[in-house]
């Protein structure tokens, strides 16, 4: 039995799925968002005294702007490491279902588990949305290098932007640095407003925004962990309540 013809196949540059992925990443609308967020993260890291190499490694290893913002702002403010680890860990929970959804698109019967480690590491909201959108148009055997290409492209943009932000924070006047620092939290806030599809998301958004500064002001330890658990719990309860009313 022959495979059904792929009618809307993506034109890949001569046989190279990885190059095709690089190109898809470079031209993605997410590149703009990533560059903006990472210029901001680079500037923040410089302002709080982290070395440039540390910033670059954090983008390569963590590759999740929210986790990096938490890590840099919390460590920079002198928060205890355990508290930072818990907040970063809770912020990363969303990656699990994303990776779970991506894997069946990448796998072939011949795929080895270790081939999936790299695309799993590249999984972040930007790469994930682009992969889910484009991979169905890519021949199955070419999907892993294609996804790795998207990830490499977006991550390179992030690293370059963070270096630029780091250097800008040295050169720009304080007011413009302040504006740069404000860029990534605002892009997260407004993206969260846009992505709030269901009741639970909206409640979590508002509770988090109000609760975290309140807990921090009262000097409550593990403020971000409590914000996540209480905000998530209240939001989930609101979601169940709404479902029950239907």
């Amino acid at each position, binding site marked *: 039995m022959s495979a059904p013809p792929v009618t809307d196949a993506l034109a890949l540059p001569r046989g190279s799925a990885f190059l095709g992925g690089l190109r898809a990443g470079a031209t993605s609308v997410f590149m703009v968002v990533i560059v903006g967020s990472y210029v901001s993260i680079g500037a923040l890291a410089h302002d709080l005294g*982290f070395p440039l190499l540390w910033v670059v490694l954090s983008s390569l290893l963590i590759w999740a702007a929210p986790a990096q913002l938490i890590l840099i702002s919390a460590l920079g403010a002198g928060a205890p490491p355990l508290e930072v680890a818990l907040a970063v860990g809770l912020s990363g929970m969303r990656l699990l279902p994303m990776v*779970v*959804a991506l894997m069946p698109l990448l796998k072939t019967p011949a795929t080895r588990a270790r081939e999936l480690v790299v695309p799993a590491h590249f999984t972040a909201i930007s790469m994930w949305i682009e992969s889910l959108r484009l991979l169905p148009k890519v021949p199955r055997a070419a999907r892993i290098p294609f996804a790795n290409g998207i990830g490499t492209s977006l991550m390179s943009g992030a690293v370059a932007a963070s270096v630029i932000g780091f250097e800008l*924070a040295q050169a720009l006047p304080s*007011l413009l640095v302040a504006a740069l620092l404000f860029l990534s939290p605002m892009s997260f806030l407004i993206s969260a407003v846009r992505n*709030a599809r269901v009741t639970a998301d909206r409640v979590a958004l508002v509770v988090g925004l109000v609760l*975290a500064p309140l807990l921090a002001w009262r000097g409550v330890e593990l403020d971000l962990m409590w914000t996540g658990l209480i905000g998530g719990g209240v939001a989930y309860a609101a979601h169940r309540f709404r479902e029950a009313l239907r």
Partner: protein
Amino acid sequence: MSALGGLAPYALLILVGFLPNEVWRMLGMAFGRGLDEDSEIIVFARAVTTAILTGVVGKITIFAPGALATVPVAVRIGAAALGVAAFLLIRRSVFAGVATATAAIVAGVLVFGG
């Protein structure tokens, strides 16, 4: 942070940054299948991460780090509110919202002083 110096920041990067984040990706790989985007546990997980994320935004806005601390807190809160309003009013464009919030920080300091 610079007070720690040496390799300590790199050890922290691995232990409290990389590992607690990466574990979810590796678990997702091991999990394989069987999680529906709309399943209850996913709704809860997404709510937790959303609350943490906006929590960080709230903390940064109120207890601003670095150069942002030179901007008065009322300007920071006003700029964030203007950003969200601009997003809602200008075709739900994230770019319009972020650009407005950032410009409002600069304008706020120039008008009301830093």
